[in-house]
């Protein structure tokens, strides 16, 4: 009756356990990433001044490219996993769920790949 903490054998983490933790970790990262992005692009720079020259200047720095890559990867994965949770509520059939999971994963992969190509390729003049 001395100690009030007990340790038990915890259940093996499954996909839902990990996805729940991922939502928390990604949310913590998103706080600086999203607000930094908003303040810089929408307040300090302003959306009307964002053009090819500005993007080229910004992406000249590897630091900003990494920042943008992190923002893309985490915001989009967080959002897609959130949608997966919402859709899981409404889909009862395991098979349809599987299709939905793969569909969302492909969507995430394609958009992230397009973003990655842009980020790695950078801005080049169209000849």
């Amino acid at each position, binding site marked *: 009756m001395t100690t009030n*903490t007990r340790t038990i054998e915890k259940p093996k983490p499954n996909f839902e356990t990990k996805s729940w933790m991922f939502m928390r970790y990604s949310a913590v990262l998103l706080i600086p990433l999203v607000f930094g992005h908003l303040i810089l692009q929408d307040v300090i720079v302003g959306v009307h001044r964002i053009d090819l020259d500005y993007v080229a200047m910004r992406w000249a720095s590897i630091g900003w490219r990494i920042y943008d890559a992190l923002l893309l990867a985490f915001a989009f994965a967080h959002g897609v996993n959130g949608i997966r949770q919402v859709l899981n509520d*409404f889909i009862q059939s395991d098979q349809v769920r599987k299709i939905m999971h793969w569909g969302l994963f492909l969507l995430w992969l394609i958009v992230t790949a397009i973003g990655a190509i842009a980020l790695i390729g950078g801005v080049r003049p169209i000849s």
Partner: protein
Amino acid sequence: MQIKLKVFRYLPHTGKKPHYDTYEMEVDPNDRVLDVLEQVRADSDPSLGYRRSCAHGVCGSDAMRINGRNMLACKVLVKDLNSSKITVEPILGLKVLRDLIVDMDPFFEHFRSVMPYFVNDDPLPEDGKERLQSPTQRERFDDTTKCILCAACTTSCPSFWANGKYVGPAAIVNAHRFIFDSRDTAAAERLEVLNEDSGVWRCRTAFNCTEACPRDIEITKAIAEVKQVIYSGKIE
């Protein structure tokens, strides 16, 4: 005071579709909604169906949707609704059997799935009498002992509305009551159930349950504590 009471009606044996009946009636502002329903049965329509037993917020029979919120009809006064228009409907997410009566079987099935009873097969202590517990240890799960299984929380949860397989806040509250009991030894088995797809991870922190609870149990907090134990393996 004069009120306009609108009640959800469904009497399967009459073959009529679900609909609303409206009653204009004179009531005392200090009447409870349950008194108002009793008055309807006595004066206008004895066929009105609802569950009630203790009439004092202890048995948990009469959870219903009153002006859109889950409450116990026996615990809410007409004057506290701040409106002369009162709408009474069955709780959501469970099949309506008749008027305000819903099928509670799925709810109790979820309740049973988390082993809501004390488990300890260790031999009794030396004196063979009691498994002792300090006041602090008892205090740890005091909040979740207050549940009366009225289902107001579970049927206010959007996750449960969308997917009836979700065990729901009431089952988790009752699991919490035993998981955090220092004398109990079956926490791991309960957490195994709650870690499944239909377990605690379906909770999205909407707080509807906490708002709906007529016993003021901090349900969302209790759910978060259970998630924490699954994650850390530590019962603190």
